[in-house]
């Protein structure tokens, strides 16, 4: 890849970066409330985002910069198997449709801001609340770090060396998130998503033409995998279960994360969420086409130092400089939106489920917003330090485990919306078995997310997240039967509202 600075590319990049920076600060005046000094306003934008704002925000937040870099890179290196991101991001929406409007309603009615608030509200258990909150924060930290990797790939392609552009971009991000809260990424998401759409549509319509059409692209990829002796444009029978369980597990985990839930809780109504379950698949179509950039990398015979360079290298080699600059700006800005929402989600958890729960139960709304703002800064600085001082692989491994961990909060968060049968000790036991058991399996397999399961003559490679979730649910059910037999009634029959300050 070229490394010298490309002036038109750089000019376009800087223009768009400056534009979103200004928007980030101006956002504090957007749909302005009397005061931003409450968690509902700073951390959830006032719970007033309608269909289109939610569409841009959740789309911008869920389809991250890292996705734009990593999915084509995986498809480039392993082929069809990397395509599991497509069924994953299709199946997530029927799930969102069935579950998230209920969750939103409970949060709205009781003033909950985080998943752990919901869990505490249902089960009145500080321990279960803490388990869900800690899992959320720990799973989110490496995810923020990965956004930096996505941004770094774009910045590197522009010809910058060293870490200072990343640090500068993150400082700016930290400052406007601090001042505007969720309104900043919500407003920037409009620019980010439109830019990403333009870049991807240009890429998938223009590049194949230059490479001899889609048929030639698939043929080139097929030949490259055969020459390499690994990877394939179709799945091997031994990959079937892995592909299906990765898709299903990822789909179930996706909206357990603090950043995606923040987008849900910030919606105006249950209808807004249902409508978005219909409309958000537009992003999935884009992701599916984007994934094919991996094969275009083979057709273009790119020589890459790292698989993560496939998307930047395609733009750089096949488009004029100014458009490459536009695409890199799209990717870099694409990192800012999720990073901001993730830090807000983590900050909300810290404020509600640690600060308010243990440090100052009588915290006022204004103090809550103050604590969350500081926490969001700390979270971002933490992610930056991880990227600068620890090997990249560390963040990748942690993010992988993060998906497994966050999935283990599903029974505690979701089951209570549909049944009153489960109790806190049972869900806690299930969570612990799923989380620690799953981590142990992943660790023993050399930090691979797949585990070979054998039962008699049947064996299959299964996504560890799904194995852990099944163990989680089975343990929770068994413990629940025992707990229900041996003790009296549980507090799980009503929602515990939060005292409101009025």
């Amino acid at each position, binding site marked *: 890849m070229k490394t010298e600075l490309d002036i038109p590319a750089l000019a376009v990049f800087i223009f768009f970066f400056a534009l979103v920076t200004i928007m980030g600060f101006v956002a504090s005046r957007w749909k302005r409330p009397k005061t931003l000094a409450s968690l509902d306003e700073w951390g959830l934008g006032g719970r007033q985002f*309608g269909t289109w704002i939610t569409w841009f925000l959740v789309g911008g937040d869920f389809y991250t910069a890292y996705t734009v870099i990593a999915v084509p890179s995986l498809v480039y290196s392993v082929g*069809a198997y990397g*395509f599991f991101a*497509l*069924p994953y991001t*299709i*199946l997530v*929406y*029927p799930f969102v*449709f*069935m579950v998230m409007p209920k969750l939103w309603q409970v949060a709205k009615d009781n003033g909950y801001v985080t998943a752990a608030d919901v869990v505490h509200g249902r089960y009145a258990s500080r321990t279960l609340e803490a388990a869900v909150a800690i899992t959320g924060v720990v799973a989110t930290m490496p995810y923020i770090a990965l956004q930096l990797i996505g941004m770094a790939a774009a910045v590197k392609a522009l010809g910058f060396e060293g870490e200072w552009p990343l640090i500068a971009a993150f400082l700016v991000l930290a400052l406007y998130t601090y001042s505007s809260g969720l309104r900043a990424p919500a407003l920037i998401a409009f620019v980010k998503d439109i830019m990403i759409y333009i870049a991807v549509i240009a890429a998938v319509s223009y590049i*194949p033409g230059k490479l001899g*059409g*889609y*048929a*030639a*692209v*698939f043929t080139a990829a097929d030949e490259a995998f055969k020459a390499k002796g690994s990877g394939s*444009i*179709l*799945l091997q029978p031994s990959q*079937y279960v892995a*592909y*299906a369980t990765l*898709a*299903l597990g990822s789909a179930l985990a996706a909206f357990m994360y603090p950043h995606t839930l923040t987008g849900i809780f910030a919606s*105006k*109504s*249950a*209808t*807004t969420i*249902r*409508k978005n*379950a*219909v*409309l958000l*698949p*537009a992003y*999935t*179509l884009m992701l*599916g*086409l984007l994934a*094919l950039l991996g094969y275009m990398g083979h057709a273009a015979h790119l020589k890459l130092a790292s698989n993560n360079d496939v998307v930047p290298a395609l733009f750089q080699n096949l488009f004029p400089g100014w458009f490459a600059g536009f695409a890199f700006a799209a990717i870099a800005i694409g990192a800012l939106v999720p990073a901001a929402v993730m830090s807000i989600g983590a900050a909300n958890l810290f404020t509600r489920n640690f600060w308010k729960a243990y440090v100052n139960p009588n915290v006022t709304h204004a103090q809550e917003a103050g604590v969350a703002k500081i926490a969001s800064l700390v979270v971002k600085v933490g992610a930056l330090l991880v990227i600068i001082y620890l090997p990249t692989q560390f963040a990748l491994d942690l993010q992988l485990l993060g998906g497994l961990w966050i999935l283990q909060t599903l029974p505690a968060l979701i089951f209570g919306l549909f049944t009153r049968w489960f109790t806190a000790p049972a869900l806690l036991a299930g969570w612990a078995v799923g989380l620690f058991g799953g981590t142990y399996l992943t660790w023993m397999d050399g930090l691979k997310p797949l585990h070979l399961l054998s039962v008699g003559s049947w064996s299959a490679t299964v996504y560890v997240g799904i194995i852990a979730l099944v163990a989680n649910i089975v343990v929770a059910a068994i413990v629940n039967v025992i707990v229900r037999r041996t003790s009296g009634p549980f507090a799980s029959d009503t929602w515990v509202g939060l005292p409101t300050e009025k």
Partner: protein
Amino acid sequence: MTREIRAATGEALIMNRHYLWLLLLPFVGLLWIPLYNFKDPVLLGFPFFYWYQLAWVPVTAVLTWIAYRTYPHED
């Protein structure tokens, strides 16, 4: 307007909720890999494996929209 009609005829509402079962179709269609792990028929250069999965995006959106219509609209 449909809202009042539905509210008046609770039975119609319950009938409509059967449409929610449609949301299980994408899970079957996408998680049963032997159903679609083929090269042929190729469409516009895309092997079946790829265009079949891409086709599920609009299909799922339409199924979800059908389910969406069975709910009252609050806004």
